C-alpha cells in the first residue's frame, strides 16, 4: 500500500493528530463502504479497497437499480455515499437529491437552487458540475453562478451560502470543492472570459472568507513570499507574476482554477493546477504569463504558496494545467519519495517531489504529442524545467493570422479534467486520454467584460493515419512509461476507478461502462448505459454488497466538439465524415446506473 491515508492509516492519523485534516472527512473516507469525496480520498487516487467485485467475477456484473436525474446536459463528477444515504447532483440548475439506500433509493430530500439562466451562456462548453463534497454533517454545493451553499446533510436545508464570483464578468463554477480542516476550498472558471483566476477558502462554520490566492498579479494577491516560495528549488523573487505580463494585462490574465484539489495532511499542503492565460492569441500577451499553467502547493491554513512549477510558460495552445494532482509514496531511484503525479493537457505525465516541488519525471503519455521535444531536466541549465517548443508548432512564432497545422494534442489536451486513478497494488496509474490534434490560428481580439475573449480559430481531428480519438492507458509514474494502452473510438471523458479487486472501471462517450483487468487492460465487462458517459466511476458497499455507480448524460466539451464528428481539413474533401460522429451513438439525458453482482 503506497498511497497515503487509507483505512487504518487514516484512522491512526486522525486519532494522533486531531487538528489535522477534517476529522469527519478523514473518518468518512477511511471507511471503504463510503464514497465520501469526489476523488475518493484527499490523495485523489480514486482507489477503493473493496474487492468483492474482482477480475474473476466482474463479468457477471448486473444493473441493480437506476435513477433519472431529470436533467439533460453533461453529467460530470459522481454521487457521494455516506452511510445509508447517496447524494446525487446534476448540471445546471444544480439539483441535489439525497437517496435512501435502505429503501431502493427513495428520495429523502431534494434541493433546487434558483439561478439566473443568464449564467448558462457564459459557461464555456456546457453547464457541467463536478459534484458535491461532505464534511461535519454538511453537503457542499458550488453552483454554476458561483454561489457556495452548505446544506444540512439530513434535511437538505441551506445552513449558509456565500457568493464567490460575478457571472456578469464571466466568472462561473464547474468544479467540486475540497474541505480541509475548518475550511472549504473553492476555485473559479472563466478563462475564456478574461477572468483573473483565484482559489478561495471559506470557513465551514459560517461561510465567511478566510483567504484568497490569485493565480496572476501582485505578490500580495497571489500569496507568494518572494524569498520563501520556491520554483524548482529557488526563491520565486519579487513580483514573480507581474514581471511576466505587459502592463495591466494580468488583470484579465486567466489562470482559472476549475480542476481538482488534493491535500496532504502531513505537509498541510493543498495542490491544484491553474488554467490558460487569456487570450488564446499568444502574441497579445508577451512574457511567461506566470502563474498560469502552474502546479501550486499552498499552505491550507493561510493560502501561502510553498512551491510552484509552471508547466507551459507562455501558453500557445490552450493547454490548461488544471488536471488532478495524485499524491502517492513511491520508490524512485532506490529512494522512497512523497510524490505528486499529474497528467497535463500538454501531454506530459509529471512526477514531482510534493514536499519540495523538485521535478523528477516529465515524459509524454501520448506518443502523438508533437509540439515539444521534451522538458529540460538539467538543473544547471538556464532553461531547466522548461519544455522545448517545436518551432513549426509554435502559434507564437508562426504569428497572428497564420494557421499552425497538425499540432498535437488539440486544445482539449492529451487529457482533460477526467481524473485518473492509481492502484497501490499494481503501482500503476490508469489514465483516460484524448488522442486528437488540431489546426490553430490566433488573431487579434478585443476585451469586453462578460464577453468571450478567445482569439483563435480551431479545427480538430485524430492524429495522422489514425481513427481512434482516445486511449485508456496504464502509466508507470516512476519511469514515465506506458504499460498498456486500450484504444477507444472517442476521447475517454470519464474518470477512472481502481479497486483492490484488480479491476479498473471507466466510461466511454458512446455510453459503455467498461471494466478492464488492472494488470493487462483486457476488457472483462461492458454495459451500454442510456447516454454517453462523462461522469466518474465510483464504488461503495451497502448491506454487505459492493456496488459500482456512474452517471451517464453526454455533454461537456466532448459533447460539443465531437457531436458532429471531426474532419481533417488537410486530408482533402474525401475525408469529410471519415471520423465517427458522437451524435450517431448517443443523445442527451442524465441517468445514474448502479451495478452489483447477482445474489
Amino acid at each position, binding site marked *: 500500500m503506497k498511497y497515503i491515508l487509507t483505512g487504518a492509516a487514516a484512522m491512526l492519523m486522525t486519532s494522533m493528530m486531531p487538528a489535522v485534516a477534517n476529522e469527519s472527512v478523514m473518518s468518512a473516507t477511511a471507511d471503504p463502504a463510503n464514497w465520501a469525496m469526489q476523488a475518493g480520498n484527499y490523495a485523489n487516487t480514486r482507489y477503493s479497497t473493496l474487492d468483492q467485485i474482482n477480475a474473476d467475477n466482474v463479468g457477471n456484473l448486473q444493473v441493480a437499480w437506476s435513477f433519472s436525474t431529470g436533467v439533460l446536459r453533461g453529467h460530470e463528477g459522481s454521487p457521494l455515499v455516506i452511510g445509508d444515504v447517496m447524494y446525487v447532483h446534476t448540471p445546471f440548475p444544480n439539483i441535489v437529491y439525497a437517496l435512501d439506500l435502505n429503501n431502493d433509493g427513495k428520495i429523502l430530500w431534494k434541493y433546487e437552487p434558483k439561478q439566473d439562466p443568464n449564467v448558462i451562456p457564459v459557461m464555456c462548453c456546457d453547464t457541467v458540475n463536478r459534484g458535491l463534497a461532505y464534511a461535519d454533517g454538511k453537503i457542499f454545493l458550488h453552483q454554476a453562478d458561483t454561489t457556495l451553499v452548505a446544506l444540512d446533510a439530513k434535511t437538505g436545508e441551506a445552513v449558509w451560502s456565500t457568493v464567490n464570483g460575478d457571472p456578469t464578468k464571466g466568472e462561473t463554477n464547474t468544479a467540486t470543492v475540497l474541505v480541509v480542516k475548518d475550511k472549504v476550498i473553492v476555485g473559479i472558471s472563466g478563462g475564456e472570459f478574461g477572468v483573473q483566476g483565484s482559489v478561495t477558502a471559506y470557513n465551514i462554520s459560517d461561510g465567511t472568507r478566510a483567504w484568497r490566492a490569485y493565480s496572476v498579479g501582485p505578490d500580495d494577491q497571489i500569496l507568494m513570499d518572494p524569498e520563501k516560495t520556491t520554483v524548482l528549488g529557488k526563491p520565486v523573487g519579487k513580483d514573480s507574476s507581474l514581471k511576466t505580463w505587459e502592463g495591466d494585462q494580468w488583470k484579465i490574465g486567466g489562470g482559472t482554477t476549475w480542476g481538482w484539489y488534493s491535500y496532504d495532511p502531513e505537509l498541510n499542503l493543498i495542490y491544484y493546477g491553474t488554467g490558460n492565460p487569456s487570450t488564446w492569441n499568444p502574441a497579445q500577451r508577451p512574457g511567461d504569463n506566470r502563474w498560469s499553467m502552474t502546479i501550486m502547493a499552498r499552505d491550507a491554513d493561510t493560502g501561502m504558496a510553498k512551491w510552484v512549477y509552471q508547466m507551459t510558460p507562455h501558453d500557445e495552445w490552450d493547454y490548461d494545467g488544471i488536471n488532478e494532482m495524485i499524491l502517492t509514496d513511491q520508490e524512485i531511484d532506490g529512494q522512497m519519495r512523497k510524490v505528486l503525479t499529474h497528467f497535463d493537457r500538454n501531454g506530459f505525465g509529471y512526477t514531482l517531489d510534493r514536499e519540495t516541488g523538485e521535478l523528477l519525471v516529465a515524459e509524454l503519455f501520448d506518443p502523438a504529442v508533437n509540439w515539444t521535444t521534451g522538458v529540460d531536466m538539467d538543473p544547471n541549465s538556464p532553461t531547466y524545467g522548461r519544455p522545448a517548443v517545436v518551432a513549426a508548432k509554435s502559434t507564437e512564432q508562426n504569428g497572428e493570422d497564420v494557421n499552425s497545422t497538425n499540432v498535437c494534442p488539440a486544445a482539449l489536451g492529451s487529457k482533460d479534467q477526467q481524473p485518473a486513478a492509481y492502484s497501490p497494488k499494481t503501482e500503476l496509474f490508469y489514465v483516460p486520454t484524448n488522442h486528437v490534434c488540431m489546426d490553430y490560428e490566433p488573431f487579434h481580439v478585443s476585451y469586453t467584460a462578460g464577453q468571450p475573449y478567445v482569439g483563435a480559430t480551431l479545427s480538430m481531428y485524430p492524429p495522422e493515419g489514425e481513427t481512434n480519438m482516445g486511449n485508456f492507458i496504464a502509466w508507470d509514474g516512476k519511469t514515465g512509461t506506458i504499460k498498456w494502452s486500450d484504444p477507444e473510438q472517442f476521447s475517454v471523458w470519464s474518470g477512472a476507478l481502481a479497486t483492490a479487486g484488480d479491476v479498473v472501471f471507466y466510461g466511454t462517450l458512446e455510453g459503455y461502462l467498461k471494466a478492464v483487468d488492472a494488470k493487462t487492460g483486457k476488457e472483462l465487462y461492458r454495459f451500454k448505459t442510456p447516454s454517453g458517459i462523462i461522469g466518474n466511476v465510483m464504488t461503495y458497499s451497502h448491506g454487505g454488497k459492493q456496488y459500482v455507480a456512474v452517471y451517464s448524460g453526454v455533454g461537456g466539451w466532448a459533447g460539443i466538439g465531437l*457531436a458532429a464528428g471531426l474532419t481533417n481539413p488537410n486530408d482533402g474533401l474525401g475525408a469529410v465524415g471519415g471520423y465517427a460522429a458522437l451524435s450517431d451513438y448517443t443523445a442527451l439525458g442524465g441517468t445514474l446506473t448502479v451495478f452489483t453482482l447477482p445474489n
Partner: protein
Amino acid sequence: MKKTTNTYVSFTAASLMILSYGMATPALAAGVQDTAAAYSEGGRYFTKDDIPTFNIGEDGTVDWPTYEGFRRYHSECHVCHGPEGEGSSYAPALKKSVMNMDYYDFLEIVAGGKEESKGGTEFVMPSFGTNKNVMCYIDDIYVYLRARGADAVPRGRPRKKEPKSDEIRQAQKDCLDG
C-alpha cells in the same frame, strides 16, 4: 421565445441600423432560401434583395467574407454550436437555422441573445451586441453559415479564397477601432 433587450452599439454593421422590432418579417419570407449572388461590391456579394451571400468559384475558391466567417465562427461560435455549424449536445446546428431564418432575425438574435425552454431544459444564447469580435464580422459569419447550409462549401477550412479587398480591410479597422 423571449428575446432579451437589444444592446446595439454604433460599431455594428450598417445593416443593423434598419432593424426594428416593429418590422414585419414573415418567418419564411419568399427569398429566405435564395443564396444566389446577384452582384458584388468591394469584395462582398449580395442577393437581388441586397442580403449578404457567399460566392463559390468553380474551383472551390471562396469569397473573402466566407473565409473570414469560417475563422470567426471557429473562434466565437463553435464552443457552443459545434464545428462548422453542425450543432452539438449544447446548442443547435446553425447551418440549418440560417436557412430557415430571415437575415434580420439572425442579426437580432446574435446582437440581443435568445432564451427558450425545450423539454424542461433552458437554452440561453448570450447577447453579443457589445462584442466587436463578433459584431464586426457578423456578415462574414452569416455568409459562411449560409454557404454551409446550402452545402456550397464542405466541412473544414476553405482551401482557396479571394484576396481581402481594401474596402473590407478598412471596414474591419473602422469597426474594431470605432
